[in-house]
């Protein structure tokens, strides 16, 4: 395969994001199959010390530019486009996070190539890249060949483990220069997480509600169960969008990552964006009317049934047992 394999390192507010290491692990496998070097591209301002953490790559291409201090996707996309034109990589792996997805889609648009989306696995085979992409909210997977040069590929969180992509090896850093004009879109400020009544990341017991809860009033059933367990209620995107729960209770891509001892889902289908935030829970019990819901692929125990019936029954049984 002509050209190197690149991963776009994501650094945010002074930290390398965990997904960067997941991409390094996946990129290392693909580079091995392609017989090509693995390069990490880190764009930032005064971020050299972060580049040193990317030793799993053969080389870290590091661009230091004041215009890359704030999360302005246009600047990052333009910088990457310049580097791609100069160095002609075969594939560019981009983290599918809220922070980086705009960089990926703007980069692909600038280069007039597709942005291959929702990729959970990638292989280099016989000079081609073959991706496995998750579609229809996790209900189907497509095996896809990407022949664009370069292939810009959005990688879902969790494609590989973070530990696989960490390395004690000192990174070989190559400084690269980019030229950036004033962007069209201006970053003004961060709005910090809204202070919630509870911090769901600190709870051992969480009852998570999704679209299947049907109405706001039915939240009471989840609240009762959570109170009986000594935990809190959280939710997936549709419940937050409806305004039934505040942003501080959202689990998943835009919300919190939680790792409770017990995570009970009521009427949550298990879209990848939600699973991303709860898959590390120690025990997951899912209740959903759809036997084919993807949530049953990550849950430890499952019930095909109506959450509105199971939740109160469970609350009563636990109360009885606790006395």
């Amino acid at each position, binding site marked *: 395969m002509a050209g190197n394999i690149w991963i776009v390192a994501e650094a945010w507010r002074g930290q390398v994001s965990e997904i960067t290491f997941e991409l390094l692990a996946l990129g290392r496998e693909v580079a091995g199959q392609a017989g090509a070097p693995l390069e990490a591209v880190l764009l930032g301002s005064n971020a050299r010390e972060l580049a040193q953490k990317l030793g799993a790559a053969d080389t870290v291409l590091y661009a230091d530019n004041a215009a890359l201090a704030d999360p302005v996707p246009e600047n990052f996309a333009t910088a990457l486009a310049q580097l791609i034109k100069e160095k002609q990589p075969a594939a560019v792996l981009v983290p599918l996070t*809220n922070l980086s997805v705009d960089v990926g889609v703007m980069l692909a648009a600038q280069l007039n190539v597709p942005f291959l989306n929702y990729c959970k696995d990638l292989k280099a085979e016989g000079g081609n890249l073959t991706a496995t992409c998750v579609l*229809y909210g996790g209900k189907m997977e497509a095996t896809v060949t990407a*022949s664009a040069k370069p292939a810009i590929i959005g990688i879902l969180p969790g494609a590989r483990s973070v530990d696989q992509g960490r390395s004690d090896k000192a990174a070989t850093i190559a400084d690269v220069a980019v030229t950036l004009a004033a962007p069209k879109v201006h970053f003004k400020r961060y709005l910090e997480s809204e202070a919630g009544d509870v911090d769901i990341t600190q709870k051992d017991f969480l009852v998570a509600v999704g679209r299947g809860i049907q109405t706001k009033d039915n939240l009471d059933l989840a609240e009762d169960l959570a109170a009986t367990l000594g935990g809190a209620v959280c939710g997936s995107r549709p419940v937050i969008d409806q305004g039934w729960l505040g*942003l501080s209770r959202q689990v998943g891509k835009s919300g919190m990552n939680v790792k409770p001892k017990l995570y009970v889902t009521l009427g949550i289908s298990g879209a990848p964006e939600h699973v991303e935030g709860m898959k590390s829970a120690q025990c997951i019990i899912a209740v959903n009317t759809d036997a084919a819901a993807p949530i049953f692929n990550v849950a430890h125990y499952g019930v095909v049934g109506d959450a509105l019936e199971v939740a109160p029954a469970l609350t009563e049984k636990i109360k009885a047992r606790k006395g």
Partner: protein
Amino acid sequence: MDILVLMKVVPDVVEELEVGSDGKSLDTSFLRTIINERDDHALEQALLLKDKHGGKVTLLTLDAPDIDDVLFTALAKGADRAVKICGVESVQSTQTAVKLFGETIAKTPGLLPVDLILTGVSAIDDLDGLMAAPIAQQLGWPYSGVVTQVALADKTATVIKEFAGGVRGEYEVPTPAVLGIQAAEKPPRYVPVAKVRAAMKSMTIESVDAPAVEAATTVAVQQMAKPQVTGHAEMLEGSPEEVADKICELLAKRGLI
């Protein structure tokens, strides 16, 4: 203050999805479609801005079975004009959809100028791209995605974009601009069936012929299949009381209650 909303329908994943006989796409024979949820939020955000600033909201979509219901519902909610791009078979490539939308926007009289183009930031069938950024690139307009709030003043949209962990960012975007909407500031409004029926009687949906565009070819689906599951939940069966008993046993065994 005029807004163009780009919408499409996607398979309703509440229904069981099956792979078609070609092994590469969905079986569409019994497929139920619904408006892409994020596009519904884009429509709602456009209507909220219209409520505040006045102006016109125009809908542009690709023809599809049941699309008229989607468009009349949107008109009943308060949109002013609906246009569908006709003469296209089911478009499974977002790259191709981008070309169809882009060409139509450029060539159809009266669709431009607008202050904003809003569309859903993503859809569950967006395999080879997302709509908003390449449309912005074609028009030479600014783009911002994962947007959950939009305020307009003096040729500038102040938008809030979601990051992770509940942290968000505020940006200033000069208009005209293309925004990829993650969620509207309020849930999509409900509209009674009677109002939809009234819209069907009093309003019309315009049709435009699809422009000739080259199909996207650099992403080729070799196979589509239901996910091969590496792990699956141990399923608990019985009445709600019976499964509740079983869950209690499990929790007690794990020392959780």
